[in-house]
């Protein structure tokens, strides 16, 4: 084949791309077309535009629906949904890709995959594979866990790093398996059965993978895997795709995690916060116990004080004081009594003294005694003429004879 360089037309990438665009635009069919297909790889962008693929068994076509057009959609686009999309097919020149610019879209019934999903879900649900009563609880402190997933994906990386961050001394067993494609469900199911046989001590098994289209996640919607999960004695955590992806394994598993990293967040406790909690309670027990000891000790001290106060020594001291008091009182009273008697004595003595005959003699009176009887002469009849008498005066005795007597008649 000869090359005629002078006749050859050479294009730049952009000029030929523009040419292709023109061809598309001149074709009346491509400018106003309605396509029926199943939505896949649906990605709503934060700008409001929607990007997805329409596909059937053999082919697929890229689609974009801008915000201005999708604003009034009466359904929520999602993977597996069958739709009618109306618009024009144009070239996205920057990438050299043709795509359908969707202006209107309506639901055309659920897609085939979705129908299969729903049918299996109903069937297994009816059999009781989803029932909450058969779900096994996860231990609060796992020691050994297994992860069945692709050994090279982001999922295993996330699970390991989050697990070790939360609980640095964990034993993680990675069991590699394909997570998409024809053999994936079978492999994962077999690995679950295998681990149940050889490592029954596992605390739980995480099965999962990162996000993808409904086809990529399909292994987790297969009955074989669902049954292996249900049969597993070891608790299973299903962590498939994103938060919004629900698979059959999610329903059968003992715990559904929204994402692989979510599985680690949910099932692995934070060792540090457990340690903190533990030391908090331990300190509390210590504190209260010390407090109890202090209370009891204080009570003992109080009792000792009381006993000391009640001791006999104290009573003796008390009584000694009482005795002293009494003694003092006695002494005081005694003195009073003595003083009083002494006074009386003096008084009586003076009285006696004043009444003694001698004091009368001092006043000039005299006593006349009849001799020899020495009887006091009180009446005139006691003496006769020539009787001896003695007259006692204050400073001596006078001896005399009665020379006469005269009776004084008391006739008054």
């Amino acid at each position, binding site marked *: 084949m000869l090359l005629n360089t002078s006749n050859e037309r050479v294009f730049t990438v952009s000029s030929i791309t523009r040419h292709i665009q023109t061809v598309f635009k001149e074709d009346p069919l491509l400018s106003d077309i309605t396509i029926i297909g199943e939505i896949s790889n649906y990605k709503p962008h934060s700008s409001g535009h929607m990007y997805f693929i329409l596909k059937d068994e053999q082919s697929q076509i890229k689609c974009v629906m801008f915000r201005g057009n999708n604003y009034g959609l009466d359904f929520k686009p999602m993977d597996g949904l069958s739709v009618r999309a109306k618009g024009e097919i144009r070239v996205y020149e920057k990438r050299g890709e043709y795509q359908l610019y969707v202006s209107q879209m309506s639901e055309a019934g659920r897609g085939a995959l979705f129908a299969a999903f729903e049918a299996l879900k109903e069937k297994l649900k009816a059999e009781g594979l989803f029932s909450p009563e058969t779900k096994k609880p996860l231990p609060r402190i796992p020691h050994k866990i297994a992860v069945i997933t692709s050994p*090279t994906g982001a999922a295993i990386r996330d699970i390991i790093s989050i697990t070790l961050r939360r609980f640095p001394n964990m034993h993680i067993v990675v069991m590699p398996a394909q997570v998409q494609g024809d053999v994936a469900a079978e492999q994962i199911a077999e690995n679950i059965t295998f681990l149940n046989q050889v490592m029954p001590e596992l605390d739980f098994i995480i099965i999962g993978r990162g996000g993808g289209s409904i086809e990529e996640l399909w292994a987790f919607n297969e009955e074989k895997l669902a049954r292996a999960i249900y049969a597993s004695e070891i608790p299973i955590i299903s962590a498939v795709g994103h938060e919004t992806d629900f698979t059959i394994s999610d329903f059968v598993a003992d715990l559904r995690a929204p994402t692989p990293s979510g599985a680690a967040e949910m099932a692995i406790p934070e060792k540090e916060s457990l340690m903190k909690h533990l030391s908090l*309670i331990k300190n509390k*027990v210590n504190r209260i*116990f010390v407090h109890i000891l202090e209370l009891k000790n204080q009570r003992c001290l109080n009792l000792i004080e009381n006993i000391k106060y009640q001791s006999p020594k104290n009573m003796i001291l008390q009584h000694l004081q009482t005795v002293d008091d009494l003694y003092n009182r006695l002494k005081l009273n005694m003195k009073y009594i003595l003083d009083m008697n002494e006074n009386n004595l003096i008084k009586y003595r003076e009285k006696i003294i004043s009444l003694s005959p001698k004091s009368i003699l001092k006043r000039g009176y005299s006593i006349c005694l009849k001799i020899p009887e020495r009887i006091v002469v009180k009446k005139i009849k006691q003496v006769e003429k020539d009787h001896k008498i003695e007259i006692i005066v204050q400073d001596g005795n006078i001896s005399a004879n009665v020379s006469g007597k005269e009776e004084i008649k008391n006739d008054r």
Partner: protein
Amino acid sequence: MTDKKKKDEDISFEESLKKLEEIAEELEKGELNLDEALKLYEEGMHFSDKCLEKLNETKKKVEKLTREGDGKYRTEPFSITEDEEASNE
């Protein structure tokens, strides 16, 4: 005695922690005599040790398990970075 020992080793972290919390509560009520308080305190320290033991009993290990048929398998250390490089082949 052996029965008690066995039971003790079987006790899970949750149970130990729960016991410890109950003991703290019981002590807090303050209606105990000294002997009872001492006994509870000793139990509390025991369960707190148990909890700690459970938290620390595992050694960190990340390994890859490969099946070798006949229910046999072998394990080798698994490192994320190495495998990422390997996946670039």
